């Protein structure tokens, strides 16, 4: 085996500068993705105002949680893929990128040198019957699935159920409603995720909207509960 440490792998198997959860919801004519903009170094909030959503082209956004450096590498790889497609005059569509990244993540896992990221691919898939929204989720180990709504990291524990309840049985979930669900999600995330921040972005890609990422007004939340916390027992 490689390395001088007695047969241990010397691949980086732990992340350094990380981002926490990403949450995404499909609405009637597109997909909305939420991620906050803080970079954590361990438990410290190391850098602020760093985006975690990468606009690939007009139709695709890739958002990630996990290691920033690993994602930069991925971004580079995606860029190369985009220009490959551009050579034959094609635009990369979300499902193609999803399949590509799934294989890529799986391959690096097999080499025991994983990309420490969970990826969310949001996009608008053009087809003959007018197109459809696309939302894919890929984990570090190459487990991939498509969904109507999804969350990564600790938000997958905290928020999937609330979001499922919000989106269930609602035939027409429009962009405004989707974004308001995501804003609420940020508020609920900051209460229980110590790496989450209240400064965040929402990326939107849809039938009529070209892919774009918007910085949002920070959410303060309701901290009146804190007053009940003077306690002796």
């Amino acid at each position, binding site marked *: 085996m490689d390395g001088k440490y007695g047969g241990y792998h010397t691949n980086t198997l732990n992340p350094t500068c990380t981002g926490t959860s990403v949450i995404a919801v499909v609405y009637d004519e597109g997909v909305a993705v939420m991620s906050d903009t803080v970079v954590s170094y361990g438990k410290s909030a190391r850098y602020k105002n760093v985006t975690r959503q990468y606009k690939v082209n007009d139709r695709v956004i890739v958002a990630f949680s996990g290691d920033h450096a690993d994602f930069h590498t991925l971004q580079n790889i995606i860029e190369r893929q985009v220009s490959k497609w551009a050579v034959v005059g094609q635009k990369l569509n979300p499902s193609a990128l999803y399949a590509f990244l799934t294989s890529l993540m799986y391959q690096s896992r097999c080499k025991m040198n994983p990309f420490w990221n969970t990826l969310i691919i949001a996009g608008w898939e053009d087809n003959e019957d007018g197109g459809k929204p696309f939302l894919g989720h890929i984990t570090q180990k190459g487990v991939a699935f498509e969904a109507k709504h999804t969350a990564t990291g*600790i938000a997958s524990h905290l928020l999937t*159920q*609330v979001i*499922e309840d919000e989106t269930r049985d609602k035939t027409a979930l429009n962009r405004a409603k989707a974004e308001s669900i995501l804003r609420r999600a940020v508020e609920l995330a900051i*209460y*229980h995720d110590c790496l989450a921040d209240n400064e965040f972005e929402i990326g939107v890609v849809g039938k009529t909207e070209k892919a774009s990422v918007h910085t949002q007004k920070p959410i303060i939340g309701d901290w*009146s*509960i804190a007053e*009940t916390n003077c*306690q002796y027992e």
Partner: protein
Amino acid sequence: MAAVDSFQNGVLQCEIEPNGFDFSNCTRNCALARMGAAPPRLNSTGTTIVAVTYKDGVVMGADSRATAGNIIADKHCEKVHYITDSIYACGAGTAADLDQVTKMLSSSLRLLELNTGRKARVITALRIAKQHLFNYMGYIGAYLLIGGVDPTGPYLYDVSANGVTMARPFAAQGSGSYAAITVLEKDFKIGMTEEEASNLVQVALHAGMHGDNASGNSLNLVVITPEKTIFRGPIVPDFCNKPEPIESDYKFKTGSTTVLKKKEIKFDIVESMDMH
């Protein structure tokens, strides 16, 4: 022979010795594990438990699933434990530890009530629990929500196995606590009515039971007010029902099983119990 005697003595000593656990098998078990023996599996209540304080009382609730690994060991497990008439505890963690800890709390508080002639306070239950748990450094896997009403008001405390405790207006514990606590954060308000509070507890439990594999089946609630304690349950939410019944009939005809051997045993009826 002397060695055997002292060994037996040691075993007996442990059985007779009244205080604390017996750790004498620790090294042996480690040795057996190193020889490849699998350790026994513990029943653990991967759980959702939720409690909320409201204007003048406390509402506590729990799901009713106990799991052993990925198998549901008990569908109707009671996780809301009685401590005193106006103090209850919801438990998550190792089933056996929870049973014993809550029994211990219940009996010591009853003794206290008899000795003092007053209703026990919630803080007393908390203190006994946390001191006991802290003594065992987290090895007693009991995560409790202790709630109740005493003459000084309604209280809710969150107790971890290692002895950390917190007073809280609302709390959730167990593997489904992530899903449940988000619902609580979303909809909790200070000074709710009893109905609002019990609805909120139910919705939070639903979230836990729905999103968490280790929680489900049905929920139990206890509403504690200064006047009375009402127990409600089991309540089965819609998504915990079988959407479609079993469609075939699985009755075996007589003679389906091969008879290998027959033996007649004559007996007299000495006593019979009337079952009707």
